[in-house]
């Protein structure tokens, strides 16, 4: 009974499953700031380790299946099989359907970045669905004494992670906008007459930052929401046990588990969907910066469609 109460208390907050639990901090000798609370930065946490696991999976799995097929037969070499087919069809979809219509001739220059963004986020999202936390708690405590939580959770449910990824996109947009668009890209910050520049330039810059901020928050919020929802659903079992006893709790438990299974399927879908949206919007933002429009009408239309999609 005591043990059960402890479990219930431990899972008191449904947000426990989405928090970042820092295992080890390191003092880097700078002052206290938002980026360095108490002059320290995170060295290891559940999210950092999930990121590392995702990277290992990505680096070990994808090249295995993407290996060039060399059987000597032309047609056979061009036909993917097995899991490679899964990877390649996603890649081909992004290249032909998402990137090419907006990026045009620049497609093959940026497509590796877009593919990486998609698979990086996808793997982290999917790994976050695995209930690793209770299984790894002991192991983590063995390595980092004082740690209370095991490895688990979505690193994409951490706004610092999504913010960093979105910042990468921001750099890709600005740097490539300047490199490939040049003066046209700078001129794009003042779409109206020059005397309106003091008004328009800040608005355009805020717009750019808002896009990146939206990218950050969309992924973060979606990942957190799913996990919180599942945690809340499962907490009903404990709550009904304390409130009504074992009998009703069993009935509620069966329903809750069935619904949770359904929500897990939804979460798998969301994992793909959010990775896709991030990659898709990244692609769109880069395209807006590097593909030069001579007519402003086009640009406004694209802004409108993008807002609608967001």
């Amino acid at each position, binding site marked *: 009974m005591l043990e059960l109460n402890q479990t219930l208390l431990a899972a008191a907050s449904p*947000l426990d499953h*989405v*928090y*970042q*639990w*820092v*295992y*080890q*901090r*390191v*003092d*880097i000798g700078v002052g206290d700031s938002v*980026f*360095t*609370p*108490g002059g*320290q*930065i*995170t*060295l290891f*946490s559940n999210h*950092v380790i999930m*990121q*590392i696991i*995702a*990277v290992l999976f990505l*680096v070990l799995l*994808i*090249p295995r299946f*993407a290996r*060039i*097929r060399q059987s000597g037969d*032309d047609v056979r070499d*061009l036909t*993917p099989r097995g899991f490679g087919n899964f990877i*390649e069809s996603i*890649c*081909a979809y992004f*290249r032909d359907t998402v990137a090419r219509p907006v990026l045009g001739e620049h497609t093959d220059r940026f*497509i*590796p*970045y877009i*593919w*990486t963004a998609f*698979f*990086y986020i996808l793997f982290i999202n999917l790994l976050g669905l695995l209930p690793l936390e209770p299984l790894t708690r002991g192991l983590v405590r063995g390595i*980092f*004494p*004082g*740690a*209370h*939580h095991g490895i688990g959770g979505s690193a994409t449910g*951490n*706004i*610092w*992670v999504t913010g*960093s*990824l979105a910042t*990468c996109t921001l750099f890709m947009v600005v740097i490539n906008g300047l490199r490939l668009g040049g003066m046209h890209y700078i001129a794009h910050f003042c779409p109206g007459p020059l005397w309106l520049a003091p008004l328009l330039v800040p608005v355009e810059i805020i717009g750019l930052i808002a896009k990146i901020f939206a990218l950050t928050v969309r992924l973060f919020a979606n990942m*957190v929401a799913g996990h919180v929802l599942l945690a809340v659903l499962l907490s009903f079992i404990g709550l009904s046990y304390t409130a009504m006893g074992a009998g009703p709790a069993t009935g509620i438990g069966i329903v809750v588990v069935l619904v949770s299974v359904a929500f897990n399927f939804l979460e798998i879908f969301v994992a793909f969907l959010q990775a896709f949206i991030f990659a898709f919007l990244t692609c769109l933002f880069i395209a807006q910066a590097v593909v030069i429009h001579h007519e402003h009408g086009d640009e406004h239309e694209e802004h409108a469609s993008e807002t609608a999609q967001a």
Partner: protein
Amino acid sequence: MNAQRLLTSAGTTAAACLLAASPVLASGEGASETTLFTGDLGNIIWTLATFIVVLVLLGKFAWGPILGALQKREDFIRDSLNQAKTDRQAAEATLKKYSDKLHAAREEASAIVDEGRRDAVVVKQKIEADAKAQAEALVERAKREIGIATDTAVKELYGLSAKIATDAASRIIRKELSPSDHERLVAESIAELGGIGGNGRSEN
């Protein structure tokens, strides 16, 4: 790369700290209150580092080959389609050529048959006309020959009759008739026969 330098410095610091069990290492969860937004520069560095590692490694070992395969397949399909289009055009041209030839041959054949038929009709008519003409000529000749034969026969009959009559008459009346009577009788007989012969001929 700024991020990489930061990562390197953080990594070396971390390694040094772990080895020396230095007091700068703070235990995790006690350090500050955990919230939904817990995080710091460490997360940024880790995220950038892992993302760049994935970008570089996959770029080299996965995206390169995949992009190559996609481009190769695209080219292969485009070439195949172009080839198929050229082949089809060539096939259509050949088909048209042969179908024209066939058409011409058929027309030629039908012209030959028509001509043959026309010739046959002409030949038929000619043969018929020839045959008719020949038949008419034969009939004419036959008629003529019959006419000649009849005349000859009549003449022979005159001669013969006159001779028989003369012989018979001379045998009967040789003794009784004077030479003058004889001559008169002969003259009368000839006259008579002449009348008969003339009648006989006109009857024919």
